[in-house]
């Protein structure tokens, strides 16, 4: 059986149209976009400019507001550290959320060691924010609110427009990590009041190792202290010779996403619902993690109670998915995102994230349903907890010998 890829939230294949657009820039068009005095440089610069236009167009921004980076991790770091340093005199308080990606949480914790105060807002059981709690957390010292557009594990979408309006009202900058959302759902920095936005090419059918930070230039003009110092590329915010082939690919990926997003979202929702219905109709004790409606089109995160996630993935050989189970991480702790939702640890160990994408077919979904159902049934036959559940024993009432 050909392997089936249902892990598009981890990374996506490069779209063949993107690849063919990139290839010349590894060959005859190898110039440095910063070489201003010959045609090799001009060709590279022109290609970068076109890509910058395409990236900006996808999010309703101006080309000049796009800073190319090595990916969303760098963009997130640049947004948090760059704003913190530049605006420290105004205040030293930052607001973010417990379900953010580590590329936000870790720089936030780092800033906390450097004299900043960081508020980590909680979420409810669907992964959604309480906007009143957000507003209550804002103080005169607050310089930045950083909240992701959509969560990478559970797909829950935050109300960006409402957050943006609140940030404006209190004169606070708003950064959003839109890594999982760009090209999947409509985003508009103007309509949503976004001041900074992190993007990554490899989650949207572009190449790995390239991304961008949108940095607003008007109302307000956002200033950033760079984290990479050097030749002054990207208006001084990100020095380093531009990754021209990567940027060209990123631009093409954005152009395609803008054209195809609406239709693709519809197709993915229907495949995702087919997967969910197929699993839930054949298996009992299946629980959805995240928000039932307000989530990314391709995301389906389910807990199959009484079956441990890693053993389930082992049985679903040839079907590539992710799990929030501790066994899949070095830390032996189950997913902090699921824990933040209040998913009990035993169910967090049983979670599987299916993430569908552009090349997912109905046939693949049907095979995935079949293989998942088969494996869950087989493992439940082996599970002492499933026996107890069927006998009506509440497993949380038992005193376990933890180790």
């Amino acid at each position, binding site marked *: 059986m050909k392997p089936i890829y249902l892990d598009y939230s981890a990374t996506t294949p490069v779209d063949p149209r993107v690849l063919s657009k990139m290839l010349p820039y590894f060959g005859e068009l190898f110039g440095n976009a910063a070489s201003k005095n010959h045609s090799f440089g001009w060709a590279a610069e022109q290609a970068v400019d076109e890509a910058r236009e395409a990236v900006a167009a996808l999010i309703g921004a101006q080309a000049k507001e796009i800073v190319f980076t090595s990916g969303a991790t760098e963009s997130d770091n640049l947004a948090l550290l760059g704003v913190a340093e530049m605006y420290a005199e105004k205040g030293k308080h930052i607001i973010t959320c417990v379900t953010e990606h580590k590329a936000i949480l870790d720089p936030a914790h780092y800033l906390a060691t450097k004299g900043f105060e960081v508020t980590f807002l909680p979420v409810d059981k669907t992964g959604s924010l309480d906007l009143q709690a957000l507003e209550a957390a804002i103080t005169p010292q607050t310089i930045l609110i950083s909240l992701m557009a959509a969560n990478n594990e559970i797909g829950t979408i935050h109300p960006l427009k409402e957050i943006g309006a609140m940030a404006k009202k209190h004169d606070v900058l708003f950064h959003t990590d839109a890594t999982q959302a760009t090209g999947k759902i409509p985003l508009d920095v103007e309509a949503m009041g976004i001041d900074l936005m992190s993007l990554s090419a490899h989650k949207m059918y572009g190449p790995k190792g390239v991304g961008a930070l949108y940095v607003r230039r008007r109302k307000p003009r956002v200033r950033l202290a760079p984290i990479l110092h050097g030749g002054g590329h990207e208006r001084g915010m990100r020095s380093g010779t531009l990754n021209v082939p990567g940027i060209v690919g990123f631009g093409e990926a954005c152009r395609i996403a803008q054209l195809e997003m609406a239709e693709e979202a519809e197709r993915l929702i229907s495949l995702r619902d087919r997967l969910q219905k197929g699993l839930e109709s054949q298996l009992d004790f299946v629980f959805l993690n995240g928000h039932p409606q307000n989530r990314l089109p391709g995301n389906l995160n389910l807990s199959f109670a009484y079956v*441990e996630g890693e053993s389930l993935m082992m*049985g679903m050989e040839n079907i590539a998915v992710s799990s929030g189970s501790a066994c899949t991480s070095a830390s032996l702790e189950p997913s902090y995102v699921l824990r933040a939702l209040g998913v009990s*640890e035993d169910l967090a*160990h049983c979670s599987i994230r299916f993430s569908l994408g552009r090349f997912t077919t109905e046939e693949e979904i049907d095979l995935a349903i079949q293989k998942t159902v088969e494996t869950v049934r087989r493992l439940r036959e082996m599970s*002492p907890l499933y*026996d107890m559940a069927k006998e009506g024993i509440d497993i949380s009432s038992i005193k376990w*010998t933890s*180790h």
Partner: protein
Amino acid sequence: MYSDKVIDHYNNPKNVGNLDKEDLSVGTGIVGAPECGDVMKLQLKVEGGKIVDAKFKTFGCGSAIASSSLATEWVKGKTLDEAMSITNADIAEELSLPPVKIHCSVLAEDAIKAAVADYKKRQQPN
């Protein structure tokens, strides 16, 4: 990532099932915790001082399933003392478990010990 032996036990686990826990010749050990991601139930049936049957049920990763499957295979035909001398290191070595999976073999050793202790307890008249 997984050794061939782990994969083989995972795909063809030996001795999955339940023994009658009311039967006085059966000892049951349940170790682990759902919130830690693994629970092992191991049962032994003892006749004439020897383990004549063993069954397991495990909630856990592939290595946990393999460790308990192997444990049931190994205890069969052994005396209680012999079974008690099986260590986690023996199990980990046989299955070539990587360091992050050693706790699975520890759990299997604990399950054997818990089942033997339960059996012994049940032999004492109350």
